[in-house]
């Protein structure tokens, strides 16, 4: 991506010693702006266009000068002035990650919007003006993390669930069995008792929620370890993303889906065999059609070992897989992996949700994929150009509904399972996605929020204040793997109960009966064409 920059990094105020502290443990006392005597620079080449976005309000009368906030802020925003004996902030560096707010022992910090933004304008939103000014300062592509944050309408929020009343009984999941087990992979053509026919490798999920691909490097060692522990505990799977599988995590081979992406980082026969399933990554919902980028400064010794690349080199994965230019080429790779793993594992293919997803999915299934992942435009990323994250791709709800419909019409729905990904926020989204035709869902942002993420969208900078998307040694311990695993397990257990409740109230006793059961869904506030695209009926009918 060459020349890249971000909305909030500002070379004028940087003090790398900040979080490391000095030998005595006392953060450096010098002001970051000492060269300017605390004054704002007005030189145009000096970021004079970067107005602060957030204001760190500290009630000084309740501040005990413990400097916890100073040490915890990784964004060069919080400083201590020993002469005045005050803690103060360089407001334009604040990204509203809320780490200081959470850690302050007297709760005396509050983050506010700095001001009203630019003059109200229905066309030129403040975020657009900020982006333009930043870009003119630096001449770079604006990078960001996480998923599309623009207020596009959400179909999940315009779909409601049915419930049983009088004419059909609801089921109480606390008193009666309720099955959430899901098998992912190709199913037999037909079933006759006594002669099962050809049986294909499937993976068993105790809950139809899997952890989405997140690579070691994009996320921290500890977070990936936490995902692995939680997946093992809950009988589901985590996914390596394109970053390879660290030797320490090969012991989780029964709980991991290993990815083969265009960069082929860390791929060898042992990698493919250290898995429950293998996945070919074609695209990612957050950045359909472009490759991955792990900046060289994030590639430390462990990441270099796992990805099999030299320390400090940029890990750039190409936009397409250069050996896949057609469905026939894809078939070759699918079968190469099946051969390498001796047909013992399902092979998944992951694509971003785009305009003709249904036809593409049909081709992928015919090419031999056992699982197809459709990743919608709300899906997150460790780093992507903001312009692409915010404007490319389509919602997973429509892509999923269309793909499921197409596979049914063609009589090949049983040949592959579908995983829906990209912006699943709660158990109701899971239920709606399954009723729209998914077998299971992937979650990533929800899992990050569960372990502390505050959606500050700075993942690409590798400074995550919560220790989730960083591998800097001083930030890494902020998320211990066992704490992460405990919180992720808690999240999945909560969803498990909620999904069981929702199935029960619809009069269903297994997740199987919900899959593609669009009669359980109704649309509110959707047009005729939207209802038709989703394959659901209008509420009230």
């Amino acid at each position, binding site marked *: 991506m060459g020349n890249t920059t971000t909305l909030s990094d500002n070379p004028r105020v940087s003090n790398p010693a900040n*979080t*490391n*502290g*000095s*030998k*005595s*443990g*006392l953060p450096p006392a010098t002001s970051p702006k000492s060269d300017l005597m605390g004054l704002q620079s007005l030189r145009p080449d000096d970021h004079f266009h970067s107005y602060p976005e957030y204001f760190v309000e500290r009630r000084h009368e*309740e501040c*005990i*000068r*413990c*400097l*916890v906030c100073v*040490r*915890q802020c990784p964004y060069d925003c919080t400083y201590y002035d*020993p002469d005045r*004996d005050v803690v103060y902030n360089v407001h334009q560096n604040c990204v509203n990650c809320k780490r200081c707010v959470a*850690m302050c*022992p*007297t709760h005396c910090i509050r983050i506010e919007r700095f001001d009203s933004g630019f003059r109200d304008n229905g066309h030129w939103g403040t975020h657009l003006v900020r982006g333009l000014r930043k870009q003119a300062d630096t001449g770079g592509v604006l990078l960001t993390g996480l998923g599309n944050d623009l207020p596009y309408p959400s179909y999940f929020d315009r779909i409601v669930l049915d419930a049983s009343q009088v004419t059909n009984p609801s089921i109480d999941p606390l008193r009666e069995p309720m099955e959430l087990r899901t098998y992912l992979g190709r199913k037999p053509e037909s079933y006759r008792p006594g002669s099962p026919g050809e049986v294909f490798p499937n993976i068993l999920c105790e809950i139809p929620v899997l952890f989405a691909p997140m690579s070691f490097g994009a996320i921290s060692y500890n977070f990936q370890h936490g995902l692995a522990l939680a997946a093992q505990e809950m009988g589901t799977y985590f996914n390596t993303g394109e970053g390879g599988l660290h030797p320490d995590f090969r012991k989780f081979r029964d709980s991991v889906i290993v990815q083969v992406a265009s960069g082929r980082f860390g791929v060898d026969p042992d990698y493919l065999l250290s898995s429950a399933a293998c996945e070919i990554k074609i695209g990612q919902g957050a950045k359909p059609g472009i490759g991955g980028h792990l900046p060289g400064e994030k590639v430390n010794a462990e990441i270099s070992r796992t990805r099999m690349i030299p320390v400090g080199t940029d890990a750039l994965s190409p936009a397409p897989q250069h050996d896949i230019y057609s469905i026939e080429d894809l078939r070759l790779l699918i079968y190469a992996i099946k051969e390498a793993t001796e047909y013992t594992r399902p092979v998944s293919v992951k694509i971003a949700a785009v305009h003709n997803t249904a036809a593409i999915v049909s081709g992928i299934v015919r090419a031999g994929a056992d699982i197809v992942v459709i990743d919608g435009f709300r899906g997150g990323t460790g780093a992507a150009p903001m312009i692409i994250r915010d404007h490319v791709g389509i919602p997973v709800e429509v892509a999923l509904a269309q793909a499921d419909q197409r596979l049914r019409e063609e009589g090949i729905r049983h040949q592959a399972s579908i995983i829906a990904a990209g912006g699943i926020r709660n158990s109701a989204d899971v239920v709606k996605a399954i009723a729209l035709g998914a077998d299971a869902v992937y979650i990533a942002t929800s899992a990050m929020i569960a372990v502390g993420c505050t959606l500050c969208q700075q993942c690409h900078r590798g400074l995550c204040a919560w*220790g989730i998307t960083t591998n*800097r*040694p*001083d*930030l890494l*311990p*902020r998320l*211990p793997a066992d*704490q992460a695993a405990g919180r992720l397990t808690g999240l999945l257990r909560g969803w498990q109960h909620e999904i069981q409740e929702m199935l029960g109230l619809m009069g269903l006793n297994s997740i199987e009966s919900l899959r593609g059961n669009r009669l359980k869904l109704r649309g509110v506030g959707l047009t005729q064409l939207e209802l038709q695209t989703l394959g659901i009926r209008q509420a009230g009918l």
Partner: protein
Amino acid sequence: MKRVYPVEERCINCHLCEVACIVSHSRTKTALGAYQVEKLSFNWVRPHALDPAVALAEGTPLPLNRCRVDVQGSVFISTSCRHCQEPDCVKACKNGSLYLDEVGRVLLREDHCVGCWMCLMACRYGAIERNPYVKNVPGQESNGINHHCDLCRDRSHPACVSICPTQALVYEERGSS
């Protein structure tokens, strides 16, 4: 006996253990009371306040945490008294101010200590600090009294262990030390 053990790889250098230590040994037992009314503070803040005459005269904060976070690059560790089974400090103390109590804690008789610093020199862990603001020998120029972790003797559970956000301090039985 249960002791406090640091887990180096979990420490995030937040220094909340020091905050909790100070508050739990304060009179008011609240953060604002300890820091603002009693003027307690950390031993890494304002080195000039270490001169007790100046500090007492000016009312500047008294740096009195008993655990302290040692920082070396990106390695952090919160250290405090090990409560040794055969404590060198107790052996070295010439007037019996330091003693092993019935459960095995090494404690101080605060009104006995004359600030001779034999304990400070004997402790192989460097776990003893000086509290220069208490004087048992009137008129004497220097000194103050011994200051070290008492495992929060007023509490059921050490405060540093309770507050640590990443469980980088554990309070457990590990046999002899």
